[in-house]
């Protein structure tokens, strides 16, 4: 396998990627298609009964018009239900959560800017804010990863483990710890506090937030008619969780990607012959919060060291 030409390796990676996408698509289709169709049928039935019941006084199109308006509003986060006594969308904690979801690239989508000014500001804000937060993340990583590697080093010396094994052990231990503290624990809390979601849904929410996917279909506290203060506390808690959890996640990813096995794999796919050391380091060292991070150190073996 190591004798493959670079082009072949890229091709292999691209094919693997497409296959993975295809696999995901087929599985999701198999899993989600039938329930969606059933829901569709239910909806049609309900629409039919509604029209049957009130069809006499409903002119054609009135219902559709109302539904259309309501649903487009919903897509932008404006709820048509309730009479507005529940917490507003853009009060300060919600706005904070929104900007946090912007800067962490999670993007829940339960709120989105409606006004042209809001959208324009969003564009400018992200363009400026993302590099800043990326720089912050790089700085934090730089400071904290050495801290984290100390227990590993201690264990390695204590138990006379070879460094690669110690590194692997440390990475796995860190991964388990982070998963336990930042995914399972909050999921349990959420499940206990919020009655209407199952444990799996809570885990799913925690996972999708921390991986910055941020589907946003389940958001704790929304629409549950909580007292405004509680609702705000909920949002602030979510905000803190998002920021801390992401940091922990990134540190874990960094630790994992420094493992020799991972680096070997990246190098296998990433090397493309006599490339400039400059380019290699540039590309293999991303600091993106999109969790596509392969640290710059991954290129270290192939680079001329700085000093």
């Amino acid at each position, binding site marked *: 396998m190591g004798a493959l030409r670079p082009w072949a390796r*890229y091709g292999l*990676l691209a094919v693997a990627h497409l296959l993975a996408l295809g696999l995901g698509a087929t599985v999701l289709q198999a899993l989600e298609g039938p329930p969606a169709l059933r829901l569709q049928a239910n909806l049609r039935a309900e629409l039919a009964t509604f029209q049957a019941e009130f069809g006499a006084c409903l002119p054609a199109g009135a219902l559709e018009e109302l539904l259309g308006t309501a649903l487009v*509003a919903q897509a932008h986060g404006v709820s048509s239900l309730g009479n507005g006594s529940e917490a507003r969308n853009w009060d300060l904690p919600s706005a904070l959560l929104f900007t946090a979801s912007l800067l962490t690239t999670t*993007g829940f989508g339960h709120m989105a800017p409606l006004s042209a000014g809001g959208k324009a500001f969003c564009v400018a804000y992200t363009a400026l804010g993302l590099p800043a937060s990326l720089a912050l993340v790089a700085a934090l990583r730089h400071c904290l990863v050495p801290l984290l590697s100390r227990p590993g080093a201690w264990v390695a010396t204590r138990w006379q483990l070879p460094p690669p094994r110690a590194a692997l052990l440390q990475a796995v231990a860190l991964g388990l710890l982070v998963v336990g503290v930042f995914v399972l624990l909050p999921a349990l809390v959420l499940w206990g506090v919020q009655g209407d979601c199952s444990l799996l849904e809570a885990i799913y929410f925690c*996972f999708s937030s921390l991986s910055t996917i941020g589907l946003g279909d389940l958001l704790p506290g929304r629409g549950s008619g909580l007292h405004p203060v509680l609702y705000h506390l909920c949002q602030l808690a979510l905000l803190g969780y998002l920021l801390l959890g992401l940091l922990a996640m990134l540190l874990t990813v960094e630790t994992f990607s420094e493992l020799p096995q991972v680096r070997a794999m990246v190098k296998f796919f990433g090397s493309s012959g006599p490339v400039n050391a400059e380019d290699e380091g540039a590309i293999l060292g991303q600091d993106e919060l999109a969790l596509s991070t392969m640290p710059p150190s991954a*290129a270290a073996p192939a680079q001329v060291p700085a000093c």
Partner: protein
Amino acid sequence: MRSTTLLALLALVLLYLVSGALVFQALEQPHEQQAQRELGEAREKFLRAHPSVSDHDLGLFIKDVADALGGGANPDTNSTSNSNHSAWDLGSAFFFSGTIITTIGYGNAALRTDAGRLFCIFYALVGIPLFGILLAGVGDRLGSSLRRGIGHIEAIFLKWHVPPGLVRILSAVLFLLIGCLLFVLTPTFVFCYMEGWSKLEAIYFVVVTLTTVGFGDYVAGEATFLGLLFPSHRALSWAQGMSHNQLLSPLPGGVPGASPNQNFAAYQPLVWFWILLGLAYFASVLTTIGNWLRVVSRRTRAEMGGLTAQAASWTGTVTARVTQRVGPTAPPPSEKERPPLPPPPCPAQPASRPLSPTAPEKTEPSSPPTPPTPPTPPTASALDYPSENLAFIDESSDTQSERGCALPRAPRGRRRPLNPPRKPSRPRGPGRPRDKGVPA
């Protein structure tokens, strides 16, 4: 990085967060209130016009419809032509998988089944790193081919005697501009045409997608449920993502939501491809700039470190001379600074001894008889080799550079044992001038 820098950066980002929240609130809250009011009015009007429908029933119905649409249902009553449409046909499922892997996560199509959610978790756990590697590879290719082009331009700049620092900045700007042109502006116009969005909405969608934020209020290539929802009322542009003005006055005013993309099968894959390229490109640009900044900061620190060492050695020289004059019996006042040095043997030649109490690695002559000399090699070396300095250096070599750049060893010494376990294989490259004094 120093902790003060870190704290400053942290404070800056938090401040940025809060100020952004305030601005968004100021911009959006009035609109939200207005939208909510209008919606309430529409609802009231409906209820008044159709008194047989009760408020409660309507509310329940709308809730059910919203839930169902979120789950991907299509409440099309005239279902003859669109009965085969599903939110989870292969193309849409493919697109959904794509948004999971890139962590964009629009959320316009939501998973309903438990099995689906579980699968999604494991799928993402494997898929995100896989995509990361792909991104690295693609970005590598893109970056190097673009860099070659920019290298030519840089050569031209250098021929025009533009200072190297400025050249780097210019090439970074050029990199960014080309990227914006290719991956931001062109798709903006494409989406304007294909989706019927306004320019602002298209650019908003592009930025939100490429940064992987992915709100989901606008999604390219999504089968427009609402457009399919009421095909008999196509003139009323309810297509998802219609502009705010159209929302308020749904009269025939624009291109209907059933956009041409429904017929163009390759549209969604192309959108996906664009996302991949755009992400790779901007990731590589960000890394490039980040590395350049790191180099600049390290160089500055090296220079500062060199100057500090210079100053320290000069102080040592002066002190030595002073103590020599006082007499060999007098204890050297700065004894703690010069443990490795033997006592000066002959009072006549104190200055010739290379006194470098705080920088034992420095072998270059560091204590010239005339103290106010211009900075010697340690700092000059940083400037003499711009190509090496501007190469991409990984983060952890930070400590190595500090070792090699003649900073006081004692406070940094404790870091050394940490490095070998983390990086067992660091091939030593050709000797660099900064390394000459470093017994690595």
